[in-house]
């Protein structure tokens, strides 16, 4: 209860702080969402992407 109250008074009460909260939240959310999606994609395609199999070909060239 006190947490919601402090959150409300600190962030949501004024329109200016509410807007800033939304902007900062959008930046944070973008990073989390994009990087999370990227991580999920790489996890599902493990061993198929170029950066996962690149070292195999690099070793052959050196030999």
């Amino acid at each position, binding site marked *: *209860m006190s947490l*919601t*109250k402090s*959150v*409300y008074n600190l962030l*949501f009460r004024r329109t200016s702080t*509410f807007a800033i*909260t*939304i*902007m900062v*939240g*959008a930046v944070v*959310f*973008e990073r989390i*969402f994009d990087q999370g999606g990227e991580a999920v994609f790489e996890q599902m395609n493990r061993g198929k992407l170029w950066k996962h199999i690149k070292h195999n070909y690099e070793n052959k060239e050196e030999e």
Partner: protein
Amino acid sequence: MMSLAARSGAFSPYMQATAFVVPGPLKSLIPGVVVKGETILVDPKKPFLCRESLSGQSPKTGPAVTVCINGCAGVRFAHTDIRIPDYSDYRRPEVQDPQKSSQDSSESRRTFSYLVTGAATVMGVYSAKTVVSQFVSSMSASADVLAMSKIQIKLSEIPEGNNMTFKWRGKPLFVRHRTEKEIATETAVNLSELRDPEHDKDRVKDPAWVIVLGVCTHLGCVPIANAGEFGGYYCPCHGSHYDASGRIRKGPAPLNLEVPFYEFLDEDTVVVG
């Protein structure tokens, strides 16, 4: 007003027009009859929550008028024929009970509302930003086009004092390896003599190498290297003379030869574009 009309004694029959059928030019099919309203049984067990839930038990007849000297003149159940929906399904649980003060839960309800609004706006901002950036980046050149737009030049193949022409973005590109004497001459040129004043230092990154577009700024001909009165370039079309820094010195051209963006990867290689 109705009670006043009812209590006015002998005049009352004349003052209440509704009690009598007034003969008119149009004869109604059904004569006006005052129907006695049904008795309404109020369910006392049903909880009386709020005004809206009253619609389940309030009288549902139309306006009923009774006239009597001692009794009340009329009871009108205003708009009881309109069914008011019960909104208790849509209310938050904190405000279902009309006996409880809604102020106690206002803080949490308010925070929740703002939280939902803020989260929705964050999603909206993110989606708008993604859509706009995707759309804008779709208009920029693709990677293969960008790769084609660059040219890598090996400088060791160009002997000193010579000029080599390359094709870059469909245009000729002059790379000139200047001698010490040419560098000294061009740096010493007084800027007031020039039509398009630009110092030699501003046109080159390494004084030994002059990289300019081989397009005459007059009408777009390709100048001839190591020709003309100033030892730089000479445009055969209308006789513009450029010096060894690609600056216009004589003839109709208005501007110096254009310097593209380039950078030296190392001592031997330069990448233009």
